[in-house]
């Protein structure tokens, strides 16, 4: 058993100067075990930061994956935050993916569903890196074989020359910073990475998508007792 992608859309939602957004980027199937939302908040440094952020899938509210939140960090031009939200047992179908917060802000948002994952602890080993001012954003996630590692990188202002592993999204059309996200099959200490055109700064939030931990059924015997048909 291993984790795999259930539904994904590489076209990210881009929002500018709003306190809410909603969209319908994916259709979750009956096989899905969890959804993971990646949010990249990026705006002018002086803009008042959003608070009381609520991310939802249909009627379900997602929670921040513990550790997978960089908080707001100022790069050369913008204030950026990369954060992951997750939820087990997502509602099936093309539900509304939405976010709301105080104080108008800009950024990117997307959601992916997984199958074969654990439904008690779907995400773990959350990590956040930044602000780092080089051209090679990278984050290491403890993600064993059978799991997946996924992350979102908030790029302050540089071009995104390449996205490593499998691209979740790659977009530079927002009014402020640029953004990419990616995922890959777990391999122990698993690296997610990209390549930028400059060193204005980046932040990276990532986590492990854990394979199902359910114990498979094993027939048991009772010593000294043999059940017979008659």
């Amino acid at each position, binding site marked *: 058993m291993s984790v795999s992608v259930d539904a994904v859309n590489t*076209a990210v*939602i881009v929002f500018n*100067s*709003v306190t809410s957004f909603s969209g319908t980027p994916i259709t979750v199937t009956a096989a899905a075990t969890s959804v993971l939302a990646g949010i990249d908040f990026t705006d002018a440094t*002086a803009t008042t930061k959003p608070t009381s952020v609520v991310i939802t899938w249909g009627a379900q509210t997602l929670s921040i994956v513990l550790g997978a939140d960089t908080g707001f960090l100022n790069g050369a031009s913008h204030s950026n935050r990369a954060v992951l939200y997750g939820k087990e047992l997502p509602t099936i179908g093309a539900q509304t993916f939405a976010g709301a917060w105080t104080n108008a802000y800009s950024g990117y948002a997307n959601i992916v569903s997984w199958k074969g994952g654990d439904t008690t602890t779907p995400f773990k080993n959350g990590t956040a890196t930044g602000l780092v001012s080089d051209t090679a954003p990278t984050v290491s996630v403890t993600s064993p074989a059978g799991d997946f590692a996924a992350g979102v990188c908030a790029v302050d202002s540089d071009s995104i020359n390449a996205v490593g592993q499998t691209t979740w999204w790659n977009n530079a059309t927002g*009014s402020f910073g640029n953004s990419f996200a990616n995922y890959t099959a777990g391999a122990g200490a698993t690296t997610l990475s990209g390549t930028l055109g400059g060193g204005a700064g980046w932040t990276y939030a990532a986590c492990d998508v854990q394979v199902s931990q359910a114990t498979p059924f094993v027939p048991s015997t009772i010593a000294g007792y043999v059940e017979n048909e008659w």
Partner: protein
Amino acid sequence: MVNTSLTAIATITTGVITSSSSIPATLVDPAVTQVKVMWDITGNTSASNVSSQVRLDVSQDNGVNWTTLCTAGRNKGYDLGGGPDPNNASIVHPLPGVGNPQRMIRVFLILSAAMTTTLTAILS
């Protein structure tokens, strides 16, 4: 008329919009992959304090059936900031049904009070 890519398909006449207005149902080029809805916020300062909400609907059957694709908005006025486009709020969303010649969109802007604005949808 089928709208081609990278074209502002409709713009509400700039002026005072009293409560709500819309971009009427418009046929979309089958090749279009995303839509950007943008509205001018310079007429909505903190002093005017108008809430604004846009909603984009999509139809895959020439306007017979509609579903809401995306929304975005703000619950009060703006302290206009910096950045490359401080005068507009916007949302970009992938447009499903690529290749479908019967695809249409429509856009609504709902305001809590009158304000001067321009609503634009851009396809690409």
